[in-house]
């Protein structure tokens, strides 16, 4: 990451991608009548959009570089705060959803923290530290929430009915 603009572009893309993914997962759970988790995912998407707005605010009056989706410099295959689609399940509980969200936030935190500690540009270090601290707050908040949603019994994914033949 070579410039402040590039850093902000990444922050924007990170939150946007996370918001879209949480929305997609909310839709998927909604279709499968899992309303509790649907609502949770919608909330996550909402928070991501709030953070997105903050990142976009930083971008005001700046000419951000335009990356193609695959040109961003993420540490992994996807942006760090984007939850993995294959971690969802139609019978998943709020506990699972919170674990997923927590995992995202932790990866987001690690991403920013890494930049805050290692980047050569002091302006990026400063901003990354700010973001990392914010992510740390989210992590703490989710950890608190998680105490209210302990792990479900081991047979949480048991379905008494067989799957349906569709086509």
């Amino acid at each position, binding site marked *: 990451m070579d410039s402040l603009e590039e850093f902000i572009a990444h922050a924007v893309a990170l939150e946007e991608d996370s918001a*879209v993914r949480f929305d*997609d*997962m909310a*839709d*998927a*759970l*909604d*279709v*499968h009548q*899992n309303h509790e988790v649907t609502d949770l995912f919608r909330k996550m998407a909402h928070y991501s959009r709030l953070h997105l707005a903050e990142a976009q605010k930083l971008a005001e009056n700046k000419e951000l570089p335009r990356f*193609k*989706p*695959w040109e*961003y410099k*993420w540490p992994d*295959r*996807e942006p760090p705060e984007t939850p*993995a*689609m*294959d*971690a*969802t*399940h*139609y019978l*998943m509980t709020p506990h699972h959803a919170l674990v997923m969200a927590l995992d995202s936030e932790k990866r987001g935190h690690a991403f920013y923290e890494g930049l805050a500690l290692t980047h050569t540009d002091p302006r990026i270090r400063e901003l990354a530290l700010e973001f990392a601290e914010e992510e740390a707050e989210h992590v703490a908040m989710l950890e608190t929430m998680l105490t209210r949603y302990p792990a479900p019994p081991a047979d949480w994914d048991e379905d008494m009915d*067989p*799957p*349906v*033949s*569709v*086509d």
Partner: protein
Amino acid sequence: MDAVVKKPQDYKSDLKPVWCPGCGDYSVLASVTRSLAELDLDPHTVALISGIGCSSRLPAYSTLYGFHAVHGRALPVATGLKLARPDLTVLVAGGDGDGFSIGGNHFVHACRRNVDMTYIVMDNSVYGMTKGQASPTTESTWTGSKLTPEGPGLAPFRPLEMALSAGATFIARAFAGDPLEMTRQICAAIAHPGFSFIHVLSPCVTYRPEQKEWRTLVHAEFTEPETDRKAAFLRLLDDDGFSTGILLKSPSAPFRPTTAASEPISALGRQFAI
């Protein structure tokens, strides 16, 4: 460039997918819409054709012109459309059963015919819509289906080798868990003049939950596309089925029937005059 920058959401319809949460196909839908936004294509100039199966539900989830055709016949429908309407961008989506089993013949001949379109196969090695039977790409010893309790006992179909043998000019493999790389491939495939084949490893969380392991098995391998078949064949000799990237992008002259209106219709009868 267009005054209004297009967003992936512009290509998504209000219809919500019926796919199981966790299905790899969500990722393909996201990559397709992202690619179209990236290429700044007007949704009404793109057609998305499919057959039958989980993945073939894709068109209805888009704001594109779609055709959800019968099982196995997406490629001929798309071919007819593209030949009759070369102005359109034509995408084809389907699964491993649709494309390699019932539609296998069309797959081979679409590779040969090299009509300018992009074919995305979401491969999960199982028939999801009919409750989990073995597909052409299923391991021969997989005993997860009541239909083949001893395992299918057939060597799995090797889509990339088939496509290469049949003469495809653009061949790639993507992984649902890496939608950004998939987006890159789809953009390149659409830009490629000719038949482009993208084999997407798209896990089935319901009937093949063990495919979650694919995340650790895939490896970016085809970093620079080959331009000739021999080199591509050599690379496939070492393919474990989890190599990703664009394997081949070779020079291509897409098939277009010659047509040049030269005569009034009324003149056609002259050949029968005595």
